[in-house]
C-alpha cells in the first residue's frame, strides 16, 4: 500500500517538475559559457503532458489505429521478448552462481570474464549475435529476429543474477555451515536448506536489476538489429516525426517507461511470498 502511494507520489512529482520547468525554463534552453546546461522548454522539445495524453487517443496516421493501441501492441511484443530474455538470463545466472559457489576454481576462472562480459558495448554485440544466429534453427523452426533480441536481453540480465546470487550463496555464517556439516548434510542439502534461502535477500535486488537490464537489452536490441514490432523500433519510427508531431515520440517513450515499471512490479511481486520473515521483524532504521 505504502509502495503504491510512493509510486503515485513519484509520478506526481515528475509531472510537476516537467510542467514546472516548462513554465519557468528558457524556451531556447539555458547555456552557460556556450555550454548548454538546461534543455529547451518549448513545445517542440517538451510538449505539455496533456498534449501527449491527447495524442495517445488520436489515430497514428489519418484513418489508422489510435496511437495507444499501436504503443500497447508494441509494448506487449517487447514485454514478451523481455520475459524470454529475463527467464533465460536468470537461469544462466543461477547456474553460473551455483557453479562458482560450488567450485572455488570455477569462481576464480570465471568471475573476471563474467564482469568483463558487461563491458562489451551492446551496439557491437547486436550484429554479432544476429550474424551467427542466422544459421541456427531448432529442428523445423528457423531462428527468428526476436530471438536475437531476447539473447541480447538475456546477455544483460544474467550478470546481476550471477554476481548477486554468488554473494548470497556465500553469505551464510560459519556457524550455519558447521551446523549443516554436523547434520552430515552433503553439498546439495546445504545448498537447499541453507545457502539458497540465505541468498534470497541478495537475489531479489539482483532480479530487479536483471528485469531493468532485460528491458534495456530488448529495446536497444530491437533498435540495433532493426527488429520490427516492438517499442524500441516504435521510438525510432516516431522520432523521425519529432519535428512535425513532437507529442507522438513521447507516447512511445511513455510506453517504454510503463513497460519498465510493469517488469519491475512483476519482479517485486515474486518476492512477497518468499520473504515473509522480513515483514514480520520490526526494525527501526533511523
Amino acid at each position, binding site marked *: 500500500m505504502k509502495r503504491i502511494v510512493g509510486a503515485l507520489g513519484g509520478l506526481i512529482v515528475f509531472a510537476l517538475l516537467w510542467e514546472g520547468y516548462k513554465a519557468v525554463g528558457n524556451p531556447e534552453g539555458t547555456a552557460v559559457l556556450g555550454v548548454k546546461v538546461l534543455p529547451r522548454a518549448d513545445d517542440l522539445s517538451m510538449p505539455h503532458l496533456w498534449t501527449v495524453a491527447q495524442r495517445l487517443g488520436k489515430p497514428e496516421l489519418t484513418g489508422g489505429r489510435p496511437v495507444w493501441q499501436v504503443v500497447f501492441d508494441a509494448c506487449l511484443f517487447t514485454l514478451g521478448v523481455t520475459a524470454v530474455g529475463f527467464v533465460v538470463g536468470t537461469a544462466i545466472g543461477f547456474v553460473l552462481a551455483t557453479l562458482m559457489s560450488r567450485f572455488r576454481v570455477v569462481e576464480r576462472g570465471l568471475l573476471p570474464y563474467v564482469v568483463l562480459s558487461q563491458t562489451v558495448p551492446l551496439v557491437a554485440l547486436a550484429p554479432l549475435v544476429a550474424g551467427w544466429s542466422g544459421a541456427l534453427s531448432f529442428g523445423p523452426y528457423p531462428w527468428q529476429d526476436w530471438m536475437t533480441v531476447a539473447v541480447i536481453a538475456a546477455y544483460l540480465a544474467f550478470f546481476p543474477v550471477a554476481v548477486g546470487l554468488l554473494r548470497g550463496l556465500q553469505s551464510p555464517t560459519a556457524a550455519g555451515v558447521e551446523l549443516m556439516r554436523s547434520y552430515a548434510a552433503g553439498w546439495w542439502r546445504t545448498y537447499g536448506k541453507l545457502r539458497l534461502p*540465505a541468498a534470497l535477500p541478495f537475489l531479489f535486488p539482483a532480479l530487479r536489476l536483471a528485469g531493468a537490464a532485460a528491458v534495456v537489452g530488448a529495446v536497444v536490441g530491437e533498435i540495433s538489429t532493426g527488429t520490427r514490432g516492438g517499442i524500441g523500433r516504435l521510438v525510432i519510427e516516431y522520432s523521425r516525426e519529432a519535428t512535425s508531431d513532437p507529442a507522438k515520440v513521447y507516447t512511445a517513450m511513455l510506453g517504454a517507461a510503463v513497460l519498465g515499471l510493469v517488469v519491475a512490479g512483476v519482479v517485486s511481486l515474486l518476492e512477497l511470498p518468499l520473504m515473509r520473515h522480513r515483514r514480520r521483524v520490526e526494525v527501526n532504521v533511523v
Partner: protein
Amino acid sequence: MTAVSIAGVSKVFNAGRPDEVTALSDVDLTVDSGQFVSLIGPSGCGKSTLLRLVADLIDPTSGTVTVAGKPAAQARRDQEYGIAFQQAGLFEWRTVRRNVELPLELRKLPRAARKEKAEEMLALVGLADFAGHYPAQLSGGMQQRVAIARALAVHPPLLLMDEPFGALDEMTRERLQGELLQICAKTGTSTVFVTHSISEAVFLSDKVVVMSARPGRITATIDIDLPGRDEAARQSPAYFEHVTAVRKALRA
C-alpha cells in the same frame, strides 16, 4: 563403552604463519557412556576448539579423536551427536518451530511427527508460545533456548554443548539445568558441556575438566560425587567442597 576418547590431540591454527596459535597441546580425555563432563577454563584456552574437534568440524593437527568407537569423521556422518554452540546459529528465514524441525527434516521424519516433536521440545525450554516467531523477534537468551531445543530434538547419543546457558538469567538457567539432567538421565545421553560457571559445572557434571591457556591443555580432572541433583544438592557440603576444589584447580 566410551562415548568420546581423545588421545594425544594437539591443534595448531595457521601453522607456519606469523599468526600461528597453538590452541590445544597434547590433550587426553575420555568420556564414558552416559557420563556428563564439563570443560572449564579461562577464555581462549581451547574449550570450543576441543568441542569442534569432537564434532569433526576441524581436524586435529596430531592425535586421534574417537566418538562412539569410530573415528570422529565417521561418527559425524552417522550423526552420533547433536550440538548447541556458543552462537545460537538459527536460520533467520525459518520460524522458531521450523528451526527446531531442521535436524528432523534432514532425517526425513514425516511432517506431523516433526511438528509434534518440535512443539514438545519448545515447551521444554519454555518457548511454546513463540513457535511461530522468527529468530530476529527473540531475545538472545530465547534464541539460545531454541538452539538447545534443536539439539535435543533428535535425542542424540552424545550432546556437545558450548556455553548453552551463557545468555540466560539465573532462574531460567537453573530450570534448564534440571531439565537437561533429567533428559540425559532418562535417555542415557553422554554430554560434553563447556561453561564458565564453576557452580554450574559442579552441579551438572560427573567429571569437571579444568583447562589452562597458552597452550591449551588439561591441568586437572575432578570427579564429582553429589548425593543427588536437586535443590538440596546445591546446598550440600559435598557441593561446596567440589566448588572449592575446582576453584583451586583453576587458580593453580
